[in-house]
């Protein structure tokens, strides 16, 4: 299925959970926050949260800033 991750369209397998998606991207152990279609997905729900076709996923972290 096609989804949009941080503004870029990507193909991921059907039936992918948020945890699996982050693992696939090599971000499984990173401190980050996840938003799908403008709604926060809490870390505690990553294992059970299923990504759906067309989802707009934002993965963010903290960087230097004033």
């Amino acid at each position, binding site marked *: 299925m096609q989804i949009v*991750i*941080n*503004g*870029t369209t990507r193909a991921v397998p059907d039936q992918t959970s948020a945890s699996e998606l982050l693992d696939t*991207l*090599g*971000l499984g152990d*990173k*401190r*980050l*926050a*996840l*938003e799908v279609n*403008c709604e*926060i997905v*809490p*870390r505690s729900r990553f294992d059970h949260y299923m990504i759906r076709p067309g989802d707009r996923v*934002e*993965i*963010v*972290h*903290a*960087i*230097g*800033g*004033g």
Partner: protein
Amino acid sequence: MSTVMQSQPATLADPLVIAGISYRSRLLVGTGKYRDLAETQAATEASGAEIVTVAIRRTNIGQNPNEPNLLDVLPPEKYTLLPNTAGCYTAEDAVRTCRLARELLDGHDLVKLEVLGDEKTLFPDIQQTLVAAETLVKDGFRIMVYTNDDPIVAKRFEEMGCVAVMPLAAPIGSGLGIRNPYNIMTIVENAGVPILVDAGVGTASDAALAMELGCDGVLMNTAIAGAKNPVLMASAMKKAIEAGREALLAGRIPRKRFASASSPLEGTFF
């Protein structure tokens, strides 16, 4: 919060209290614009700051997964992280950013709210900032709000429940220093929450002046990160904040137009 208005005389040992939490340092620093994370770490350490701002941005996908992370050098166990909403031009984007930050930092809800109105000046859009503040207060956030040097607006943010109000000294990154000291003084005198100058400081004397005007603290980034020697400037800023605070508490002499001799006039032999 005006020092002179308090019933108990203020002392040097008084902590900066924001939303019920005490901090020893009255210097807050940003973490942007440094050459690398090692410099960020060294300058932040030299500043003595306990509260440091961070930005929330998209994670790079597919790039080096072992890339060092800001939070590795500024661990949340050691510093109070203050996520900002820099780059937001609407209340909606700012609220979204704060919610992501709270999730990222495991429920930590102290945020720096800024909603910008114009790319050239980076002056705040007060109307949008008010809208965002209202939503965020209801949502349980503790807001330190970036605003202009308007005393009426500053008071409004306090009344809405912001835990600190942070008027600009001059445009962000401009280094122009305190453009309107009388407004900053008025904001301080009217305030019941901490007032911190945020943005516009260029060098140590600007920071000292902010403290002499009665500000509770100063937040800066570019003045340190953009200096030729950021670590040395961080140290200078730490001292300036302390010097300005001491001068305020010591009580400066009144300004007079003409001289007043320091040596006695009696006992001269000429």
